[in-house]
């Protein structure tokens, strides 16, 4: 009887929750974020209007209105940041080429940031005056500039590195498979010296790829070292190095393609 009751409770309450958790993926997180960003933009327009009105008339009514609109905007801003961080977390989860520990470390940091903005949103409601609200809003600005922004660019970089590593891994697998095949062909008495040379060239391209990845990682590490650097600029520089690394992967794959053609035609 107790077992049956437990099963019914599980089916009614827990199963829908677990299904919901499975359904929550990157696309769903993106929709949430875009919806909240849209709400923020609307709230921001209202805030600008209310602020201008207050600065012009300095009346109690305009101040009350400014307070309400500022509260709405800052809360929407917090919610936008929170949902955006969840988007990054979901993207990170779906990205191949990253180790589980790497994913865990970043997911934890992203979750912490998302929780901070969620708490801050609640804290804003406790503001008794416009001055208090402005002061509380500055806390979010500080947090974003000191920690959140760095984490965002580090995560974006990590996602791109994961994608590149995943492709490099696939190419490496084909190199191994081709090496075995060439050995087999060689045993049959055929000359495969040219294909072997091309295989060495492929490996050289992969080495250069790894060097570029390392350079890009060094570049992104500069984010934490210098406070005054333009973070977006630093990220874009690191991303540009990743593009160069991507070109090496393309070259490596072209070599592999040529090796297969050579084996097939025997020219």
């Amino acid at each position, binding site marked *: 009887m107790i077992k049956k009751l437990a099963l019914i409770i599980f089916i009614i309450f827990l199963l829908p929750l677990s299904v919901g958790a499975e359904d929550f993926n990157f696309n769903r997180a993106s929709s949430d974020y875009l919806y909240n960003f849209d709400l923020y933009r609307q709230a921001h327009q209202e805030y600008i209007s209310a602020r201008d009105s207050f600065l012009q008339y300095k009346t109690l009514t305009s101040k009350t209105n400014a307070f309400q609109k500022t509260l709405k905007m800052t809360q929407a801003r917090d919610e936008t940041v929170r949902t955006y961080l969840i988007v990054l977390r979901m993207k990170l989860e779906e990205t191949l080429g990253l180790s589980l520990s790497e994913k865990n470390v970043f997911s934890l940091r992203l979750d912490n940031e998302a929780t901070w903005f969620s708490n801050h949103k609640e804290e804003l409601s406790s503001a008794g005056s416009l001055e208090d609200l402005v002061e509380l809003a500055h806390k979010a600005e500080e947090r974003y500039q000191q920690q959140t922004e760095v984490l965002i660019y580090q995560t974006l970089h990590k996602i791109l590195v994961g*994608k590149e590593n995943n492709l490099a891994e696939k190419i490496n*697998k084909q190199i191994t498979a081709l090496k075995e095949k060439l050995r087999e*062909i060689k045993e049959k008495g055929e000359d495969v010296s040219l294909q072997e040379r091309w295989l060495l060239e492929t490996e050289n391209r992969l080495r250069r790829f790894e060097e570029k990845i390392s350079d890009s990682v060094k570049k992104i590490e500069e984010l934490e070292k210098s406070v005054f650097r333009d973070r977006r600029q630093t990220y874009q520089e690191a991303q540009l190095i990743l593009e160069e690394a991507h070109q090496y992967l393309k070259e490596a794959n072209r070599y592999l393609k040529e090796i297969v053609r050579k084996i097939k035609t*025997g020219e």
Partner: protein
Amino acid sequence: MTDFNQDFENIPFMEESSSKKKLILGKRKLLFLGLLFILILGILVLLRLLFGFKKNVPSSPLVAVTPTPTPIFSEEIRPQSLWATDSGILKIEEEIKNIENELDNTDIKEKGLMPPALDWKIKF
């Protein structure tokens, strides 16, 4: 008998002189017409030379006129080795093609993931 009753002496002298005059005028006219003809001919020759020269100058020196190549409908047949139908090689070939597609379609910028532009400066 035929009566020659003509007054030769009274034949108007002026008529002869006017025909001479007419002849002189005709010569001038002829000369004028001849010159006009030569002039027109000269202009025509000049025009011909001019247009003929223009035709020889290519309108666009960068565009090289090449004969239209004859289409080849038969596919180039390359000699196939014994390994052309090897399942291992065919599998590797397919994997490489997949990687190539992935390399071409991978978004290495992820612009859609960039952080939102937010107003952080609250001032009153």
